[in-house]
């Protein structure tokens, strides 16, 4: 089963797609990357994920897996030799899942909140909210890492993947708004972690360069402000 061909339907700017790529890289699984174009949805995507019509979709042989963190868990369970991406201690596993849910439910909406803010007042409030959440995550890092390099310990793990995939977009947000969100002064542990995460062999080739992402962001945000008429 593990030997079947692996394809990943995705797009280079997507942090959710990056989660799946990092997981495959950590397990040294070769895969074919099928790039979706922004603004269009291929027939393959519509057929593979009819419920949500969203990337990423993992195509493993004839099996389809959707939802980025579910894909990461699937990869962890199928390619099970070697260290797991979730901690081995059961309580630590629950903690990692808890914080991953927090990332999706609280962190991600707060980050896009900055891009969606319509005026300076709203923007300031959105930035404040992101900073508060980062303070919570700085604290979470202390508890989860237990003095080690990553949320997952010595190696990049499930929670590192869940949060780290947003670092490119976080840097773009900082640049476009002239703010520091993760920094050595405000969030020292997250600042160090961010550097180590981005430098990890499983991450560095799939993390987009900030400048390239910033160019893409300009095009995308123009669409937010001037949505094409349907």
């Amino acid at each position, binding site marked *: 089963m593990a030997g079947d061909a692996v394809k990943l339907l995705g797009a280079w700017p997507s942090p959710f797609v990056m989660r799946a790529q990092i997981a495959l890289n950590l397990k040294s699984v070769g895969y074919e990357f099928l790039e979706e174009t922004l603004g269009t949805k291929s027939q393959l995507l519509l057929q593979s994920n009819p419920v949500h019509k969203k990337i990423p979709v993992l195509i493993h042989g004839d099996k389809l897996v959707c939802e980025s963190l579910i894909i990461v*868990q699937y990869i962890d369970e199928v390619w099970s030799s070697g260290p797991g991406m979730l901690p081995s201690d059961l309580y630590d*596993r*629950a903690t990692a899942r808890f914080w991953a849910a927090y990332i999706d439910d609280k962190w991600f909406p707060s980050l896009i909140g900055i891009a969606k803010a319509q005026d300076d007042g709203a923007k300031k409030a959105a930035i404040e909210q992101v900073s508060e959440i980062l303070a919570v995550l700085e604290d979470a890092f202390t508890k989860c890492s237990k003095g080690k390099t990553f949320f997952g310990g010595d190696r990049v793990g499930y929670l590192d993947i869940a949060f780290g995939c947003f670092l490119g977009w976080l840097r773009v947000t900082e640049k476009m708004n002239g703010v520091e969100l993760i920094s050595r002064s405000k969030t020292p542990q997250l600042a160090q972690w961010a550097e180590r995460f981005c430098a990890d062999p499983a991450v560095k080739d799939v993390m987009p360069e900030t400048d390239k992402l910033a160019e893409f962001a300009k095009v995308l945000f123009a669409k937010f402000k001037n949505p094409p008429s349907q």
Partner: protein
Amino acid sequence: MEEEGEDVKLLGAWPSPFSYRVLWGLKLKGISFQYEEEDLARKSSALLRYNPVHRKIPVLVHGEKPIAESTVILEYIEEAWPQKNDHPLLPQDPLERAEARFWTKFVEDKNPTFFRYFRSTGVDQEQATEEAKQVLKAIEDYAELQIGKEGKKFFRGGTIGITDLTLGWISWWLKAMEEAVGVKLLMETTDEAEEGPFPNLSRWMKNFREDPVIRDNLPDFDDLVLYFKRLRHNFIATSD
């Protein structure tokens, strides 16, 4: 290996479907626990200590270690008591596990839609009702494959699993909400010959409610309707 009668506590609240998910999971697996009712209007210092991030129930406390978020708790329960394997909440196969998690997440992500249906009025309510019906249709389509074509009793198969536990709220709480809101969503029919718009979902709801563990662990329906009526009234009163 864990032992019987060890320290397991569930902090919950009687009107909460999230609380019941965990309670059902523990009971289905035959895990002994101590239940502590939280008054959501006056949260205990214990709850604030156990779940400082969200300050919400349910919280499972196992040997003084707290775990929050109902679906996270259910995954934990499944792994922490491997010897209680008469009633697995998740399948073994990785693809089937991914599918169970996919639908569990789908249901969870739609909470805001049903919340809007519950607390809104007028045009907003009409829109929310439409969206909620679309959500139910998506689940009905999945139920048509699992319950209809494959003839399963539950989404997990012959026994209740994590997807069933997460969706279970619609078989009781949503029906109570319908009474409070005065707008029908499920259109469940009591007449077997007549099919509403969600026949497979209706069949699943009936199976779920009739399961002995579920049936014996549901809040009083009339109390729930009254609770929801009051809650909806408060939401509407404070929204202008």
